[in-house]
């Protein structure tokens, strides 16, 4: 059979994820020190796991209601209220999904009509463009720059808006750059959107991993923005629950009613065991988050300092668990740098280009690793630069 001609054309034309491709290379080698994964090195806190185990023991193995257990939706609603000062009605405005990823897919498919433009800041996580395309939309790249600390500027946004613009993705704190949008930056974006009908998908999956004193600000908390915002988040990053596959989306009631339909037909309901565990995470997990965040923060400071000292300059990334140093001083492309570093020093980091063309000249380094592991990787990277005569005197 001619499968190629049978398959969906948009899907066939879609490039596979550049992150995964790089993992492939790394896994073929021995003694690799990796700083490449995008998930916590912590395991899910025990009290959360225990709740999952107990509900299994008690035989709680059925489907949940389509939108998720009301106890969990209420817990999410309470959490968003106390953390961001935004109110969502648990019954009508909160949907529990299979990870943040399902939530993103649902938002795209619920909003986009063929030809609608979706504004995607870049570099950013790999899924937005492909999911927008599959929903019939046209992804439009909004370049973010190192000199702006990879924030989306109102000027860039304004220049990209056309009559066809349907949706703006706001992926902050950002994977891969670690960029965050402070209140003032979000307000500047809000000012551009205020008189339009453009919707916003605010992917706040990393919001608990924000390291500046102001703390995380939700886009929905900016004056007048809640009515146009679909707030996507989840349990993976904050509570080290990646494998449980649990996220959520909150938004205006009329939109959520439609999104739930799609979720109901496509997924039925998010995993039951994970939902029980997530209730425990929301109700009693604040201390775990504080503890993990403090740990990430120390590693973040260490790795930023080490990289800047060896001449791979990076701005102070105040969110997520990535740093995004420039490797332009080496004269290599991102891809060349990563491949050589892997082959010669067995250190795996991800080329910035895996997250969009404007990631060229940068690499993504994750600090979801032990201090010992990070120090060894930094030592090898320094050696890599020294052997090329790229370390300055006295370094």
């Amino acid at each position, binding site marked *: 059979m001619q499968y190629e001609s049978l398959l969906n054309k948009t899907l066939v034309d879609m490039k596979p994820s550049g992150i*995964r491709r790089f*993992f*492939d290379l*790394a*896994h073929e080698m021995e003694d690799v020190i*990796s700083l*490449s*994964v995008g*998930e916590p*090195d912590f395991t899910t806190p025990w009290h959360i796991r225990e709740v999952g185990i107990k509900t299994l023991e008690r035989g709680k193995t059925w489907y949940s209601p389509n939108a998720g257990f009301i106890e969990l939706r209420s817990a999410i609603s309470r959490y968003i209220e106390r953390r961001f000062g935004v109110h969502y009605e648990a019954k009508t405005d909160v949907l529990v999904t299979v990870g943040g990823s399902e939530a993103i897919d649902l938002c795209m498919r619920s909003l986009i009509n063929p030809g609608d433009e979706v504004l995607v800041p870049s570099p950013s996580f790999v899924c937005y463009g492909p999911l927008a395309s599959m929903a019939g939309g046209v992804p439009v790249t909004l370049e973010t720059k190192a000199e702006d600390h990879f924030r989306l500027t109102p000027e860039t946004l304004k220049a990209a808006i056309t009559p066809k613009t349907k949706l703006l993705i706001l992926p902050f704190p950002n994977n891969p750059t670690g960029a965050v949008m402070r209140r003032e930056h979000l307000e500047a974006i809000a000012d551009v959107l205020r008189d339009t009908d453009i919707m916003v998908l605010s992917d706040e999956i990393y919001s608990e991993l924000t390291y500046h004193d102001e703390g995380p600000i939700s886009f929905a908390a900016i004056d007048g923005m809640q009515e146009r915002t679909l707030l996507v988040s989840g349990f993976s990053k904050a509570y080290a629950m990646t494998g449980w596959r649990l996220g959520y989306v909150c938004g205006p009631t009329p939109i959520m009613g439609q999104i739930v339909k799609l979720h109901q037909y496509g997924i039925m309901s998010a995993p039951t065991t994970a939902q029980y565990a997530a209730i425990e995470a929301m109700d009693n997990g604040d201390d775990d988050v504080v503890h993990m965040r403090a740990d990430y923060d*120390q*590693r973040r*400071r*260490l790795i*930023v*300092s*080490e990289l800047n000292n060896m001449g791979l300059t990076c701005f102070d990334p105040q969110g997520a668990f990535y740093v995004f140093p420039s490797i332009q001083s080496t004269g290599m492309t991102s891809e060349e740098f990563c491949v050589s570093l892997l082959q010669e020093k067995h250190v795996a980091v991800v080329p910035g280009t895996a997250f969009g063309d404007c990631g060229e000249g940068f690499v993504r380094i994750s600090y*979801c690793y032990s*201090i*010992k592991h990070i*120090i060894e990787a930094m030592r090898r990277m320094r050696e890599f630069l020294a052997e090329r005569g790229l370390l300055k005197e006295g370094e």
Partner: protein
Amino acid sequence: MDKLLNLLDRNARLSNAQLAAMLGRTEAEVEAQIAELEKNGVIRAYKAVIDWDKTNREYVTAIIELHVTPKKDSGFEGIAEEIMKFREVESISLMSGGYDFSIVVNARTFRDVAEFVAKRLSPLDSVVSTATHFVLRRYKENNVIFLDDDRDERGEL
């Protein structure tokens, strides 16, 4: 201060520059704080956590429970001071519960431990009785897990 101690507790080989970066302080500040902590006896020593089973060192470790009669003048303190001076004694702690002192003893052989107990520990005036337990295997020490299977399962395909 606690943050600095926690970092050193986990890894005493971090340089002052690394510690300073992690804590958002200057190198000079960290240096001064460590000096202060050493001076005050908060930091007593820096040691490696060694899995001796991976070396060819012949050794045996025993935990000894000790019942004593406290001394009239110096109580438990005096006895502890007497016992801690023995080279074989790695640690000694005063305990609540069924016995008074817990002593960790390292020696080359089983016989060496037996001789230590019989000839040096038991004859002490205040010692009423001893119970010696030999360590068979160490799994975790000083928060370090002694397992080689630390494969990172993340990022696999």
